[in-house]
């Protein structure tokens, strides 16, 4: 044990004190004791090496966690673009009455499916206008971009598109005057609840509650818009399943939404991947620099061990075990810090927590130990060529 003593200030302990302390401590193997003492006696250098290890493992964990989780996060952002699958009844037929329920059994109840039924009605002065029956609660969840001044909340209230408003609401009395619409001889009295603005086709339509619409026109929904979750392949298989349970309908992906999403997501993922690789490489470099310094700094221990007759295997094993221990401890501590960092980034940027991925732990652990071993072996290779006597002479 002299070798660890010689290089430290508290080498001045008397041999008796040392012997007493040693006999009082629990018995562990010589190898284990050497490892432990080396860490305790050189704690400042060991701490700085460990710190580098922890920081690198934390950064790597955070990046891997983000890389896996961000795609799910972004995908849910993309669902704000609305439906990515649309189910249309063939040629003027309508969908079966239980179509929505069937869609939900296939895709799970957290999937949004919104029915739409269309009819062309006439106003009092004979103007044609498209009237749509839908489920307002669902449509509101699906189409976040709809700018609505007031959602209907009472029977016989309708949502009026900005352009359609000019047809049904007279300019003389713009406050909520009820108006009449006629479809195949049936007339309905509707009160405008609010205005709808989207900048697209919806602006020239009038929206009604589905059951009121059906009572009035007798027309059942012909279209269901679905926001299917998941990756492109998952959506693809959802489309396939939907086509099987609804054989009388066309199930189509909304290419505009699907391709836009795939495009942006792929680019973001690739950028994030490149950045994550760079960050992980840089932190590995940091560990390498610190550990090489640490091992190189202990060349005297190395020389003394060899001078005392330790075999090459033992010396190598000793330094490797030390490095591995450092890697394991650093990986474990760094992993938890990294998960914390990832969760923080998730909260700050996406306003939703990032779920900790324990599946990345083996990679972080393996990477840390590998980097630690490489940084231990490199200087040992250099030292091996040097005679112990030269190192001990201080050259």
């Amino acid at each position, binding site marked *: 044990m002299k070798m660890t003593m010689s290089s430290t200030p508290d080498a001045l302990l008397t041999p008796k004190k040392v012997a007493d302390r040693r006999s009082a401590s629990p018995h562990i193997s010589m190898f284990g004791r050497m490892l432990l003492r080396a860490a305790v006696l050189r704690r400042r250098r060991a701490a700085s090496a460990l710190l580098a290890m922890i920081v690198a493992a934390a950064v790597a964990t955070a990046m891997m966690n983000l890389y896996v989780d961000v795609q799910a996060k972004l995908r849910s952002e993309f669902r704000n673009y609305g439906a990515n699958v649309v189910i249309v009844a063939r040629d003027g037929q309508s969908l079966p009455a239980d179509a929505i329920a069937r869609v939900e059994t296939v895709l799970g109840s957290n999937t949004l499916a919104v029915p739409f039924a*269309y009819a062309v009605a006439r106003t009092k002065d004979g103007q044609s206008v*498209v009237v749509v029956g839908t489920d307002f609660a669902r449509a509101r969840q699906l189409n976040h971009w709809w700018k609505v001044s007031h959602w209907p909340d009472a029977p016989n209230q309708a949502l009026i598109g900005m352009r359609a408003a000019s047809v049904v609401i007279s300019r003389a009395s713009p406050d909520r005057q009820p108006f009449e619409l006629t479809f195949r001889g049936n007339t309905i009295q509707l009160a405008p609840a609010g205005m709808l603005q989207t900048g697209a086709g919806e602006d020239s339509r009038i929206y009604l509650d589905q059951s009121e619409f059906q009572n009035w026109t007798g027309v059942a929904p012909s279209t269901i818009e679905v926001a299917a979750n998941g990756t492109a392949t998952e959506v693809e298989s959802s489309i396939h399943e939907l086509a099987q349970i609804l054989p009388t309908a066309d199930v189509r992906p909304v290419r*505009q939404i699907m391709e836009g999403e795939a495009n942006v997501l792929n680019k973001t993922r690739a950028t994030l991947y*490149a950045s994550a690789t*760079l*960050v992980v490489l*840089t932190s590995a470099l940091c560990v390498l620099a610190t550990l090489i*310094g640490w091992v190189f700094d202990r060349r005297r221990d190395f020389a003394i061990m060899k001078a005392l007759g330790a075999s090459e295997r033992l010396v190598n094993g000793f330094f490797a075990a030390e490095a591995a221990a450092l890697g394991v401890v650093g990986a474990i501590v760094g992993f938890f810090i990294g998960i914390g960092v990832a969760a923080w980034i998730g909260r700050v940027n996406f306003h939703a927590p990032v779920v900790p991925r324990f599946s990345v732990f083996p990679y972080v652990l393996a990477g840390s130990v590998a980097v630690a071993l490489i940084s231990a072996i490199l200087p040992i290779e250099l030292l091996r060529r040097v005679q112990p006597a030269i190192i001990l002479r201080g050259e």
Partner: protein
Amino acid sequence: MFPRIVYESFRRQARRKLLAGIAITLGVAVATAMIAVATDIGDKINRELRSYGANLVVTPQEDTLDVEVGGVNLKPPSDGAFLNEADLPKIRGTFWHHNIVGFSPMLPVTVKLGGSQFSALSSPDVTLVGTYFNKALTFGKDEFSTGVRITHPWWKVSCGDGKESPNCTWPADDSQNVLLGERLAAKLGKKPGDTIEVSGRQLTISGMLTTGAAEDDQIVAPLAVPQQIIGKPGAVRRVYVSALTKPQDALAVRDPKTMTPEVYDRWYCSPYVQSIAYQLQEVIPHSHAEQIRQVAQNEGTVLSRIKGLMLLVTFAALFASALAVSAAMATAIFERRVEVGLMKALGAGNLTVSAFFFAEALLLALVGGIAGFSAGALLARQIGRSIFNSQISIEPVLFPIILAIAVFVTFAGSAAAIRRAVKFDPVFALRGEG
């Protein structure tokens, strides 16, 4: 004497200096590349978001109501107001014309299909849409081309099997060739190369169009075709405009009529979707421009999320490279305590020794910083080319900033190690008990 010591130190310990220099170079390169990517990512993702299609639509001010169900327009074709095709190139004359990626005019008309096979089907009504595919236009001296191939990138032309083929192509904008929506084609049993009779005209089908939307049931033709059918040359029903915009904030949604001149100038000169719409109305007479909220509203959120993410990742990269540089410097200095002991034994003061080390660090940082900046610029360019198919340009103003950061980080990393080296007792150092 001082320069000589520094010079000799570099000459005699070339390998060790090289290691520290490499660490600095790599750290600076990563930092440069990340900063370049992070500053440019907004613009790049903005362009990718354009694959969602147009975010603005221009319609005639006095337009009548659209009566359209399932892609079939029930409105009489000559009804309502039109925009003038001749006004469209003026879109390039707006203040934010560099931000306008493309535009496509649309003129839908309802037509009857002719031909012998339709006698039994009593000639179905079909919507024929006229548009630009990739039309070359000029505005002043500015030559450009625009059309649905830019504004509607998800439109795919094939031979009906979903695969691209040289036989089935986009029609030329001055031809009488049309694209047939794939579901309409299946219904009619037509394939590319066939002719189709529309309102007494023989049009050649040059390909099948797949869009996943209403166009699958329609015929898409060069703009002149429907203009001839309804006998209104130059008529356009609406124009889709795809523009790069800035995420909306409190200023964006204010009404320009209530602004003070100063605020108005700031609003007008920001690429908000609202201000671009306002400028489009200015250049196209009797028009009404509006944002397509499905596209315009969501791209702001997606963009700010991705930008925020890259910013945080860049901080992580800067942190990691700062750490790597300081670790390398600390190691390099720690190894040289013997020299410090020798210098101090010969009578050098703490200040002289520190100055000597700092001069070395400065040299390393400058050389590493310059090399790292160039390497980082190359790395950023490589990332830009492989991911976004376009250049990521590096602002020259970044160079002094990066260099300053490199010097600062190298100094900060060295400071603790230098302090310890200077405080080390020369006797121990010379005895070799480092």
